[in-house]
């Protein structure tokens, strides 16, 4: 099957000098959840807005379902669903009116009542938009993005403003969207979200994609070292650095860290037992996407 989205050498310059997106290329395959991960201002939203046809690229080509989203917007109506950052509905518009309106854009009859229930908005059916909480607005926008049963769904920072419980619910629902056959493009700055949901992740920094792979693949490629951590009061730990796979040993107070690869935990455990040490807090810390991100960009996502 051809890719759902093809982006080649995308470039977007605001004004004359502000380069928001610089030579970005990637493809999104049918049925996958593709993540654009990056800090605020990295160029994620601009990239997605170019794909949605909301902005005209300065250079490069974008194809969604084989169409140019700027020049053939009409062909894509109802086939793309978008949940946008920083958008609103008229204050006095009611929840059901919004769903009814957006449903009328889609060909065929749309069952938006089910969406209301799925997204926990059934009780808010007759509430006006201005009376909704941040989380309710977010859920309404997601429901609106799904109302036409689109083939591609864009979710931009969709769990921002949701409480932890609502985030879990949203994650389950995103997986359901994909299970129904839609392709999902997820823009996020939450590492745990990307790691949990995305089949593939592109790390965006300063307008460029600096790495793209499965979350696991990124970790293996860029930060393969795992850490074995335990407490112990021995002064000399040099013998630990001779454990197979170990790359280094550090300690801070009673907390000791052995960094390395391979079945490190087993080797360290065996070595400790040999020396008569049986720390009860021995554990392994696997590298996370966050470590990879830090390594790749040199800064934390919230900086």
């Amino acid at each position, binding site marked *: 099957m051809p890719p759902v989205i093809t982006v080649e050498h995308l470039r977007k310059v605001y004004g004359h000098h502000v380069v928001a997106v610089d030579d970005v290329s990637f493809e999104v395959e049918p049925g996958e959840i593709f993540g654009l991960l990056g800090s605020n201002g990295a160029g994620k939203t601009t990239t997605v807005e170019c794909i949605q046809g*909301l902005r005209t690229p300065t250079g490069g080509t974008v194809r969604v379902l084989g169409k140019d989203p700027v020049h053939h917007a*009409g062909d894509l109506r109802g086939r793309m669903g978008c949940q946008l950052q920083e958008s609103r509905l*008229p204050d006095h518009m009611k929840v059901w*009116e919004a769903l*009814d309106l957006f449903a*009328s854009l*889609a060909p*065929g009859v749309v069952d938006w009542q089910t969406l209301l229930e799925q997204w926990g908005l059934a009780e808010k059916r007759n509430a006006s938009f201005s009376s909704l909480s941040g989380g309710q607005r977010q859920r309404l926008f997601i429901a609106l993005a799904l109302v036409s049963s689109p083939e591609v769904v864009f979710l931009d920072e969709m769990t921002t403003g949701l409480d932890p419980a609502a985030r879990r619910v949203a994650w389950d629902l995103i997986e359901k969207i994909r299970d129904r056959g839609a392709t999902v493009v997820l823009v996020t700055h939450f590492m745990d979200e990307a790691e949990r949901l995305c089949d593939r992740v592109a790390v965006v920094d300063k307008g460029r994609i600096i790495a793209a792979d499965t979350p696991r693949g990124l970790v293996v490629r860029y930060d393969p070292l795992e850490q074995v951590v335990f407490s112990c009061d021995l002064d000399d730990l040099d013998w630990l650095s001779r454990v197979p796979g170990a790359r280094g040993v550090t300690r801070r107070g009673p907390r000791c860290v052995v960094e390395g690869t391979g079945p490190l935990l087993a080797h360290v455990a065996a070595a400790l037992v040999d020396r008569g040490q049986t720390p009860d807090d021995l554990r392994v810390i696997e590298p996370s996407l966050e470590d990879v991100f830090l390594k790749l960009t040199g800064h934390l996502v919230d900086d």
Partner: protein
Amino acid sequence: MARDGAATTGTARHGVSHPGGLRVLLKLTWIELKLFLREPMTIVFTFAFPVVLMFVLGEVFGNQPGGSNERVFGGLGAMNYYAPAYIAVVTMSVGVIMLPARLTDYRSGGVLRRFRASLVPIWAVLGSQVLAALVLGVVGSVLVAAFAALFYPVHFPDSLALLAAGFVLCSAAFAAIGTLLGAVMPSPRAAQGAGLMLFFVMLFLSGASVPMEVMSGTMKRIGDFLPLTYGVDLLQGAWSGGTWDWTAAIVLIGIVVIAGFLSLRVYRWG
């Protein structure tokens, strides 16, 4: 569910341009009308205020021609003078108060972004505003005319056809002005301020409230630059005498063309 339907009607989906554009326009217009009814400010200015002013004017001047009235209302009874004038005021109120506030709000607040991302056509957004404005104008005008007819012996319009044509032209001119304001004003508050100022200046200096005959030279010169002056002339001609004031009509058509063109050029998606 809908997804399965999409699979079987796949070819229809990829067919020519979306057939539901008109459906969206009508749905948006209907929603706009409901939103209007939930907005106290515009209800007051479009429906209540003109009727209240008509009441005051009617109580002060009555509708008997002759006497002191003869010099001022072009020889007409005061209410025969004011009824068509206030129909013009209603179209002005919808145009300069409701439309700019709504359009600036949509533009600056992210509503247009939201609509556009779902590929709601821009002509449907602007069109629904204008259609809603027209419907509200009709309701407001009927209220004004019914009030005048019920409580004062106002005569029936001499030419209903010309009155209707004049009404549509007035509505179009003020809708064009309102859309232009909505395109250039930076925020809903700014739009509301500008709209209210225009509303009161036009209300008092265009012959809609203070008759031309008692205005000073300066007031009249200002009035010559106000669109409402021409709206009032056009509708009064149709109401009493059944005549079509071509000067007024041409001025209003000019406003529709120029303001309409400019606003479509300037109005941007959020």
